């Protein structure tokens, strides 16, 4: 064979090329047609179907209801609302349980143990107050909501409801140059952006998939809801009469989430008209038959597949970030901690945005998870204001026992209503957490798109907060 060698090989390729010219452009079409013709012949010999009308009548009826102009959207909103409600309410108890064990109980134990075996103070501070605490915090606040949200979502998926949601939403997303399935990745993003990014796999057209990945961060994720609720309660609820406080602050939070959805559509549209204009786009969506979900298996697999993968990525980042948090608060340069130096330096810029240096630093060092932003802000505020009645020591993140105490600390840090509003906006519009960024990189395999996903919302956040602050001050007559 080898003596025929490369000549023969070249001849094969040349012949193939000539034949392709001979057949013309329709080769693939004709081949597919032939294969289906064969398939039909074979199937006809072995398959016998009854009266066609009876087939899948249940599916048809259910589909008629779920996609009807009258019931379609209400059903969708109710289903999603129930999922979110179950997640938020259901996660409270296990979260506080985990927090009390990992933070309130185990943290002091670890601390005294490390001292008893002769750890120097700085080392136990670094490892336990920094690394361990940040990790414990991430697990306590992240695990329960995800362990509830993902299985519920997976059940809907297995049943076959989610493809119908994509089917109904496609019209809206098509106008934004995106795929209907982006509605699902966005909903998933409300649970966790990293999971939302992974879920974008279901979109098989590369352009639409990229749009879904880049805009997923505009879904207000689980880690950001508590921040929104806390700040809205303190500042927005505090700015209106007491009997309106609850409803106004709730409306503010929902408003931020809706703003996120609107922005995700606008950004999708802009991307599809500019940088992603040339990318190919294709649409295909199969509506599979409804199948009863297998509850136990779903619980098990979604825990393994989604929750633990995401949690693991977060924990991996949380530990080193905890070290950094502790270090910036404890390492001194010229008598001042790195944190104070940075905060003083960045304050003028931050104030231009209606924020402050503490917030900027908190968002930089709390990049592993949005969940630890508030504890970091509190710790840093106590550090720079020199308050002594709060917290557990320099560089130790903490959460106040009550909203009032938190409000007291923040107001001591110079926070105003504007700071509160802009923090809520910035919490929606800033770079994704490191877990999500890593996931984006793993999914796109592209540094460029990862950077875009990080900088685009950040730039948007700076712009929006800047204009809000300036217009606010102009009106307030500063």
């Amino acid at each position, binding site marked *: 064979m080898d003596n025929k060698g490369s000549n023969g090989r070249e001849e094969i390729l*040349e012949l193939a*090329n*000539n034949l*392709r*010219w001979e057949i*013309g*452009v*329709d080769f*693939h*079409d*004709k081949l*597919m*047609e032939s294969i*289906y*013709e064969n398939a*039909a012949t074979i199937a006809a010999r072995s398959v016998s179907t009854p009266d066609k009308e009876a087939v899948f009548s249940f599916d*048809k009826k259910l*589909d*008629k209801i779920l*996609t*009807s*102009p009258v019931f*379609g*959207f209400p059903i969708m909103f109710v289903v999603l609302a129930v999922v979110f409600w179950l997640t938020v309410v259901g996660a409270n108890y296990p979260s506080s349980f985990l927090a009390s064990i990992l933070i309130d109980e185990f943290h002091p134990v670890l601390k005294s143990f490390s001292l008893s075996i002769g750890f120097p103070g700085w080392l136990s501070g670094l490892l336990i107050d920094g690394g361990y605490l940040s990790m414990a915090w991430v697990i306590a606040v992240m695990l329960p909501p995800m362990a509830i949200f993902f299985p519920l979502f997976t059940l809907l998926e297995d049943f076959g409801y989610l493809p119908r949601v994509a*089917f*109904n939403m*496609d*019209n*809206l997303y*098509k106008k934004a140059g995106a795929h*209907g399935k982006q509605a699902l990745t966005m909903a998933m993003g409300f649970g966790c952006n990293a999971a939302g990014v992974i879920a974008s796999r279901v979109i098989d*057209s590369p*352009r639409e998939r990229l749009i879904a990945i880049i805009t997923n961060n505009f879904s207000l994720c689980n880690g950001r809801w508590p921040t929104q609720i806390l700040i809205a309660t303190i500042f927005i609820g505090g700015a209106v009469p007491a009997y309106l406080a609850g409803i106004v602050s709730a409306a503010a939070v929902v408003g931020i989430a809706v703003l996120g959805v609107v922005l995700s559509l606008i950004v999708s549209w802009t991307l599809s008209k*500019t*940088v992603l*204009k*040339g*990318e*190919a*786009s*294709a*649409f*295909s*969506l*199969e*509506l*599979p*038959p409804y199948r009863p979900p297998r509850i136990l298996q779903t619980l098990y697999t979604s825990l393994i597949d989604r929750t633990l993968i995401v949690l693991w990525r977060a924990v991996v980042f949380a530990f080193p970030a905890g070290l950094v948090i502790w270090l910036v608060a404890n390492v001194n340069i010229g008598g001042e901690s790195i944190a104070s130096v940075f905060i003083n330096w960045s304050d*003028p810029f931050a*104030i*231009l945005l209606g924020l402050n240096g503490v917030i900027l630093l908190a968002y930089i060092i709390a990049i592993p998870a949005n969940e630890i932003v508030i504890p970091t802000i509190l710790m840093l505020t106590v550090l720079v204001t020199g308050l002594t009645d709060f917290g557990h020591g320099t560089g130790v993140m903490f959460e106040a026992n009550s909203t009032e105490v938190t409000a007291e600390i923040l107001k001591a840090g110079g926070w105003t209503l504007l700071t509160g509003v802009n923090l809520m906006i910035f919490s929606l519009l800033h770079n994704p957490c490191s877990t999500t960024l890593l996931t984006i990189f793993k999914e796109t395999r592209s540094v460029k798109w990862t950077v875009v996903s990080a900088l685009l919302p950040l730039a948007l956040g700076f*712009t929006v907060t*800047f*204009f809000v*602050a*300036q*217009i606010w*001050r*102009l009106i307030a007559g*500063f």
Partner: protein
Amino acid sequence: MIDPLTSLIIGFSVILLLVIIFYPGKGLVARFKKNKANTYRVLIEDSLKHLYNCEYNGINCTLNSIAGSLSISADEAAKVAAKLEELGLVVSNENGLSLTPDGRAYALKVIRIHRLWEKYLADETSIGEEDWHHSAEEIEHQMTLAEADKLAAQIGNPVFDPHGDPIPTAKGDLPGKKGKSLDSMKIGEFAKIIHIEDEPHYIYSQLVAEGLYPGMQVQLIESTKERIKFLANGEEVVLAPLFAKNITVAPIKDERKIEGTFKKLSSLKPGEKGKVLGISRRCRGQQRRRLMDLGVVPGTEIEVELESIGGDPIAYRIKGATIALRKSQAENIYIESEE
């Protein structure tokens, strides 16, 4: 602290400036990139391409035709021709200019990149048909052959561009000319469009506007000096003979000949059924393959099953599965309706 009004003004100015610099297509960055194109190389390569086209179509090429095709003066054309001869790419003889083997290879290289790029744009991107040629005219002077080979491998080593022209191989092979022009058909004859010439642009854009594309089935109805009348996929089209000359057709071999007007899948109402006749050639690349993978091939029965809330997309029953298609896709699927 800076006065809020001042900072607002500064803020707006910065955004305006960024828009001016980066605005796609018209911004400073985009303009700078456009101007960077190397004009000298472009002239050389374009004239080689022109000479090759003359050779392929069996016409004689002169300095004047070069000047005309490149829209440059006769003096400039002469300079370019002299340079080409100096480089050993062209020889002049009594019939005008002709390519040397080196010149031919060079021209084929440029043509390969041009056609590959058009194919790439047509199949793999959502760039509109009217922009392909223009974009390829730029790319052909910038891409190296190695890059072109890589691109070809990515898109399945195509052998035809979207206009139906064969793409030269990496070695520079190209098949001979096939088919005949539309105006030379006999009355009543069936044929298939295999090529639509994309130059000059004003004729091409007119043909595209008529909805003509390679792969369409045509049947000649009337042929006079003033006009050529024919059915294209069932719909009547009238063209001036000058325009019809730019369409190349080939006889239909094994396909079903389709008479009468095509119906589009998008015209069916829920509960109605149809049998697929074919997918429009305008549906290309991955999009087209995906439709066929889902079972949309000639002969398949499709039933409209379900409308989404907004009426688009619509779910169809195709070979036992429920598949949602957007209206824009359903418009590209031709059917004959059934009772």
